[in-house]
């Protein structure tokens, strides 16, 4: 696009085009700040889910599971979203392949909700399990686009899943973990807009 000409006239013409291109949008695009956080989750399919609220930016107690105070719950590798069979909220999610920072706006539709025996997020959407090495890793480039329990929008990317003991200290094979420490980053748009810019 930035072609290269020797004559002044051409440079002038190019400059005009350049300005035109840069000023497609009138206001500058400043992305909302991304937050990175870690939560401890049960490493088996038993016990309580760990519930997280984007609005608070923290986990919420399991006693609040029947409220709309949480957006997603996580246990081992199972995600719940606060809607349908999982909770009273209106949360929804879609997992897309892309670069987290490229996504500037949440889609208008296409959000899945939890149904009995058919949860919105499937294991193979976001991680790979390697039976040979007995490890699982979050796939890079899988972005969760989320409509929260209270109809706000967020995008989230899981960065790391570490096997730990119940205090969050790493454990290595052959020892078995009791918890998994998930680290993820997210951008939460509290205004209700689908845009992830300020």
């Amino acid at each position: 696009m930035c072609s290269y000409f020797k004559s002044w006239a051409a440079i002038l013409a190019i400059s005009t085009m350049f300005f035109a291109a840069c000023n497609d949008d009138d206001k500058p695009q400043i992305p909302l700040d991304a937050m990175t956080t870690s939560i401890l989750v049960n490493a088996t399919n038993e016990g309580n889910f760990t519930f997280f609220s984007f609005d608070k930016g923290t986990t919420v107690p399991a006693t609040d599971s029947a409220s709309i105070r949480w957006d997603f719950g996580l246990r081992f590798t199972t995600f719940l979203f606060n809607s349908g069979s999982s909770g009273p909220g209106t949360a929804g999610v879609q997992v897309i392949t892309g670069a987290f920072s490229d996504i500037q706006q949440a889609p208008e539709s296409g959000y899945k909700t939890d149904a009995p025996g058919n949860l919105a997020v499937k294991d193979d959407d976001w991680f790979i399990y390697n039976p040979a090495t007995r490890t699982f890793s979050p796939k890079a480039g899988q972005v969760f686009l989320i409509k929260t329990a209270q109809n706000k929008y967020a995008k989230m990317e899981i960065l790391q899943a570490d096997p730990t003991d119940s205090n969050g200290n790493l454990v290595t094979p052959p020892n078995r973990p009791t918890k998994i420490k998930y680290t993820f980053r997210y951008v939460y748009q509290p205004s209700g807009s689908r845009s992830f810019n300020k």
Partner: protein
Amino acid sequence: MRDIHTFAAVMMKKLIFCCWGLLCCNFTLKSQDASDSLWVNDIQELVVTATRSQRMLANVAVPTLLVQKKQIQLSGLLRLNEILQEQTGLMVTSGTGSSAVGGGVFGNGVQIQGLSPDYTLILLDGEPLIGRQGGVMDLSRFTVGNIQKIEVVKGPSSALYGSEAMGGVVNIITEKKRSNYANAAFRYGSFHARDFMASLNLDRHKNTMHFFFNYNGSHGYDLTPNRPERTLDPYVNAALQLKWTHRFSERTHLVWNNRLYRGKQQSAFAINSDQLNVFGNGITQDINVQPTLNHFFDDNLKTSFRLYASYYRFTQQLNYQNTSESYYADDFVHGFYRAENQTDWTPHPKHHIILGSGYNLQTVNTTRYRGLKQQRIGYFFAQNEWKVSDRLDFIPGLRFDLNSDFANRLSPKLAAQYRPNASLQINFSYGAGFKAPDFRQLYLYYVNNPLGYQLYGASEFSLNELLQQQRDGFISRILPEAYQIGRLRPETSHGINVGARYQFSKIPARTEINFFYNAITDLINYVPAAFRNDGSIVFSYLNIREAYTRGLEWSLSSQLGKDWDLELGYQYLQTADRQVLENFKKGEVFGREYPGGPALRLTRRNYTGLLNRSPHLLQAKLAYLNKATLWGGSLRGIYRSAWGVLDLDGNSFANMPDEFARGYLLLNMSVQKTFHQKYTLQIVANNLLSHKDPVNLPQLPGLNWLLAFTWNLF
């Protein structure tokens, strides 16, 4: 008339002698003529693996590597994996054998032309060795004590050898001499490594008996002092070989070869504890029985009948020390039985034809399968070595494998050699390779609840059962892949090798270059098939992946003066999974810069190919042997560039530093002196630079030494 008869009889004897050598790895004939050089293999040296019949190395049109006893002896190395890793283009993969729980790390296999150890056929005196753990044959199981030579054919060779010969064939050829001798060797070294071997060879009239015994043990070593587990726990093993040759007549010979092996590997683990609390042993047993009957009808027709029975068993029992409760138990029994005939026929001086057929029966019984599993393969192969002219040979070949459990397979090959002059040979070969789905891929029945997955072999997988379970509410989702799982096809490859060998005329040196390309299709991989309501995943096997490996290999061997020898070898390798290449085109490949880092879009330039492949592999060897003073020694260097070992960000290849193993240089040396032609004293020091990498190279202790004493009794 009588003269003619006598002449004919003498010729016949000569011929039979030659052919006899042919069959049993000739060296009585050649050892006198062969070059004194250690690593410049005489191009007249005979090899058997490339065409299943004895041919001069120079006349073989496929890439072939020959390692001779004198090279093995001078290096002072003891196990097969150690010798192979010093050879051009061979890369030995990592592992400490059965030390790991459940064989999680599967030992030292050999990678040829970038194909994994699963795709390398390992032969002992022409018959396949069994006892693979997770697809890998642990080569440290084999002593090199009575190996006469090792032949390695690179590139797909299924047209002669059938399944598994996709990357190549390693043929270990044991001693066969018509002479009387006895020798013994004692070795002691670092980590209380001890090795004893004894050979006795008796040749009387119609019989030759060869006895060989080896005992090998070590206390192991620890590369991770901050962890309770040792890197390698103590082990001992013993091997016994008994080879009997009986010559019924000048024309009919029987060779009866038996081998016994037993190894014990101790294991100790700290399970949810700071101290060792789980102990046990892994026992490996291996028996091979191999009778061969050879008959020469006349100088143009010979046939050999071979029977082969092999039994392999690995048992492991690990118990908690306090409660004596079992922590882990494994029992794996593999049987392999074969009957085979091969006939060599020369109907015309320009055509040498071999025809063969055989039948294999394999049985496996293990705690991880539901009962005893069997596999039967019948096969037929044919090859014609057609000498088109003095300068040109064509070698077409074909093999057909019919079997009980998967699709039948036709494997063709075509090799050609052109000799523009006496010192240059130009080689071309095309070969098809295949690997039959292994027992694991067919019959595994593994329900691992703590980790939340179930893995079924394709033959144990039942879609109807999954559908029923879905109706009963146990399964939340069945993936589209589940509908494709069924009869597995063999994994297949097509390989092309183009190269040249040049023998310098003025100096005793030889160089060789070879370009290779292997297109691999129908690779079998595990795939998720269904999700259960309890969160666990059901996996099975499917032919899904396609890949290629390509590269070049170069070697130079030269004598430097009277007593010195130099050998250089280099391999450049590129590999790729075709699905990943497709994903790059679509811009759908992501990765992280460090574990836990944000995901970034990657481009083709970031691609490093299949895991466990080093792009650069360099071997340099310098040897000295003075025939007058009987002093000798060698210095060998092996450089391997960094290689990807794991995938932490879900893109299936290594891209961040944590996913790679460091490249390294291994320096090994030996010095020896022979006294009174009878006693040899040798000092061996391996890994002089003391490179250590406990995670990726557990089989490599730091600097270690060995003192050897060899006594030739007679």
